[in-house]
């Protein structure tokens, strides 16, 4: 029997600009021991669906307009606040996306873990502190926290991202729920950590026989762990079925579009580089930061070696992929090359001119030849400048346009990046994430640079938008004869776009080589691990991989 049966769920948001149908007539069911994946892009209503079940939505503006959600035969949508608290405490648990913000930084991990046990709303079910602690430690062991006994009294900041997500999972499981809702639990994590967490969720589910609803934007992540998949878009269900059916016998056009958008396979365009002509030469570059996190530590003047003795060259016309997990120093390396971060030692040469050691004023003429595209299109545009102002600023500042022809040039840029000219007067917040990234790209190519560093330009975007932006970048590189360094944590994306790859870890280069050669035959163990952890949008292969680990 299904543990949760949702039928005809409708959740509308009543905003000043009219009613938004966030969830419109959604039905599904989950059995015990089953994993249901809800997949959709941002704004598809996948999270709203699950939050409405737990009454976690802000009301107003949200309002449940209809439908039922029977949990063990009881309707969650109509139950009282007290009953809902009971459900949340006993039966249903949630794991949130960002393990950095979902733990209280002022309480020890252990204290937060045992909270639901010792402050249980039902006094009879409250447990004593020692008993609760014992249970919590057992559970921490189970989710793979080493030395759980001592870690019980640690604060959240003393854990890494992956470890925090393990703590979150332990926290969700401590009340022994029958239904576990995971809202993008691995999106904020590195790819190798993601593989571990997915494995852990799968394994715990099997041993405890809980029902899992797994929300994700990434079909690849879902392939290995889901039994059933729902594809959502704009508040409605587009396709529903068992995992193999969705992946191998796709019916719906939108699902097909999602699957097609996953970057897979090698780069299709030609390599235009000529090895003889190096545009950028980096020689023994070191960028150290003063370590300020260890206040209590005795060692004064300790350094974090973000970039530690790196040498590399980038040939003219080449797209170089720089891959690394968080904290590998890949962004710092990019900023050091552009002289945006202060370097400690070594040299950076650009067109045979040494850039390290130049004063900001001496750098100005070089700045317009090297540009950067940033990761977060919501933070990289000044919210109080119109698109016109944003795009014309570099042109006017570098004297590449006069007030007479600036309008024409800006319109040209809008065409280049595929934005309608009628949108010149708008502010950044009026655009979607993908469009904002187009504006940011427009700003970067405005000064007709030779070299662009793209720092995770697609990681904040939905998968279909990601594909569009990648194609735009390839197109622009081709047309304007650009050289690019493409920084990303996502190996599939890098493979899709770059001619050559450098793998970085802890500030040093682990391995480098031509993309396909490196893909086929990775030498360093770290690279092998990284490649093995990429989730594939292929359920059979993915299951086999998880079982093999």
């Amino acid at each position: 029997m299904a543990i949760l049966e949702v039928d005809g769920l409708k959740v509308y948001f009543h905003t000043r600009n009219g009613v938004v149908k966030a969830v419109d007539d959604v039905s599904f069911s989950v059995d015990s021991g089953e994993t249901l994946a809800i997949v959709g892009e941002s704004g598809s209503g996948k999270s709203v669906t699950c939050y409405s079940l737990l009454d976690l939505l802000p009301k107003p503006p949200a309002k449940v307009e209809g439908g039922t959600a029977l949990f063990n035969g009881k309707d969650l949508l109509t139950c009282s606040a007290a009953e809902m608290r009971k459900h949340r405490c006993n039966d249903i648990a949630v794991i949130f996306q960002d393990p950095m913000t979902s733990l209280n930084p002022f309480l020890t991990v252990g204290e937060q873990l045992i909270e639901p046990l010792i402050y249980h709303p039902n006094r009879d079910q409250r447990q004593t502190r020692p008993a609760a602690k014992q249970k919590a430690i057992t559970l921490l062991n189970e989710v793979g926290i080493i030395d759980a006994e001592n870690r019980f009294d640690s604060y959240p900041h003393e854990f890494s991202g992956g470890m925090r997500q393990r703590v979150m999972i332990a926290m969700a499981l401590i009340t022994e729920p029958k239904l576990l809702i995971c809202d993008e639990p691995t999106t904020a994590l590195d790819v190798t950590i993601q593989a571990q967490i997915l494995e852990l969720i799968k394994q715990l589910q099997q041993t405890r026989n809980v029902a899992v609803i797994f929300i994700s934007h990434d079909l690849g992540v879902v392939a290995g762990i889901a039994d059933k998949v729902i594809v959502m878009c704009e508040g409605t269900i587009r396709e529903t079925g068992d995992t193999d059916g969705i992946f191998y016998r796709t019916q719906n056009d939108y699902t097909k579009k999602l699957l097609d958008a996953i970057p897979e396979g090698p780069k299709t365009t030609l390599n235009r580089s000529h090895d003889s002509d190096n545009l950028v030469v980096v020689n023994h570059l070191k960028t150290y930061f003063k370590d300020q996190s260890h206040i209590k530590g005795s060692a004064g003047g300790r350094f974090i070696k973000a970039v530690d003795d790196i040498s590399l060259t980038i040939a003219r016309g080449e797209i170089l992929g720089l891959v690394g997990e968080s904290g590998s120093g890949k962004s710092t390396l990019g900023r050091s090359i552009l002289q945006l971060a202060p370097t400690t030692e070594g040299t950076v040469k650009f067109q045979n001119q040494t850039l390290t050691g130049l004063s900001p004023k001496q750098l100005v003429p070089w700045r317009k030849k090297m540009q950067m595209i940033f990761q977060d299109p919501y933070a990289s545009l000044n919210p109080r400048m119109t698109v016109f102002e944003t795009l014309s600023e570099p042109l006017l500042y570098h004297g590449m346009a006069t007030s007479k022809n600036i309008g024409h040039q800006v319109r040209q840029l809008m065409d280049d990046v595929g934005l309608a000219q009628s949108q010149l007067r708008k502010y950044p917040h009026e655009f979607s994430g993908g469009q904002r990234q187009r504006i940011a790209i427009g700003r970067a190519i405005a000064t007709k640079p030779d070299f662009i560093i793209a720092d995770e330009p697609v990681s904040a975007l939905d998968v279909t938008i990601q594909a569009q932006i990648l194609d735009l970048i390839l197109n622009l590189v081709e047309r304007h004869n650009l050289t690019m360094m493409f920084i990303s944590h996502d190996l599939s994306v890098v493979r899709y776009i770059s001619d050559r790859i450098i793998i970085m870890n802890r500030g040093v280069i682990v391995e480098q080589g031509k993309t396909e050669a490196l893909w086929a035959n990775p030498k360093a163990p770290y690279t092998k691990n990284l490649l093995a952890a990429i989730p594939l949008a292929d359920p059979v292969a993915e299951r086999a991989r998880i079982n093999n680990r």
Partner: protein
Amino acid sequence: MAESVKDMTKEFEENGSSLWKDAWIKLSKNHMALFGLSVLVILIVSSLLTPWIAPYNYEAQDLDLGATAPSMAHWLGTDIFGRDMLTRIMYGGRVSLMVGFIATAVALVIGILWGAVAGFFGGRVDALMMRIVDILYALPFMIFIVLLMVVFGRNILLLFLAIGAVEWLTMARIVRGQVMALRNLEFVEAANSLGLSQWTIIRRHIIPNTLGPVIVYTTLTIPSVMLLEAFLSFLGLGIQPPESSWGLLINYGVETMEEYPWLLIFPGIALSLTLFALNFLGDGLRDALDPRTSKD
């Protein structure tokens, strides 16, 4: 380079799509803000024209008359010396509004620049600049003012400067906090990678994004400055009778509140009206200067 910056500004003006122009369009659709703005304009214009339109002489006493309730001859009544209250409130408004606006403007300019520079550059520059702020904070305000008055003599302009010189400290702190959060955002880095000069970045990218809290704080500062002036005048350090200001009138009004309530009520209304108008205008400006609030 200065040339190109000038070009830039001119270009934005011609294209009519700068923040300020959009803000004005939005503001003109906000009825509360327009109400606030018109009240302020009326108050300012009438206090500018006071010497010509005031019904009586502000220091002409009529001791026989004494304090009278509002009547046809004296719309807002007279004070204990038989002076016309309407006239005195109008003359008082000149001083109060001037103190409020000039002192706040001084605080605004110094505070924003100081805070923006300290927050943007950080490190030693920040430490040095903020320690100066701390020292000035620690200096007893009254002693500071008394010293100024003793050295330079009592002078209304000096009063403005002295008050402004104290109020900018808080403004600098607010702006610095804002700027520190802003300077790590990617659009500032993007501006850096375009090679814009530090000053251009502060002026075009940083300061416009700090305006929200600054405007709110400004609308709170103006009335508090007006009351500060009343306090100083009461101690004999500011305006002296027979000249008047709203704060001073309120102070005297309080003393005779039970017998002659209108001496308190009418200057009180004048001050509150200004305060309300400022708040409406301030809220409207804050919304208008934030493109994220909808245009209609």
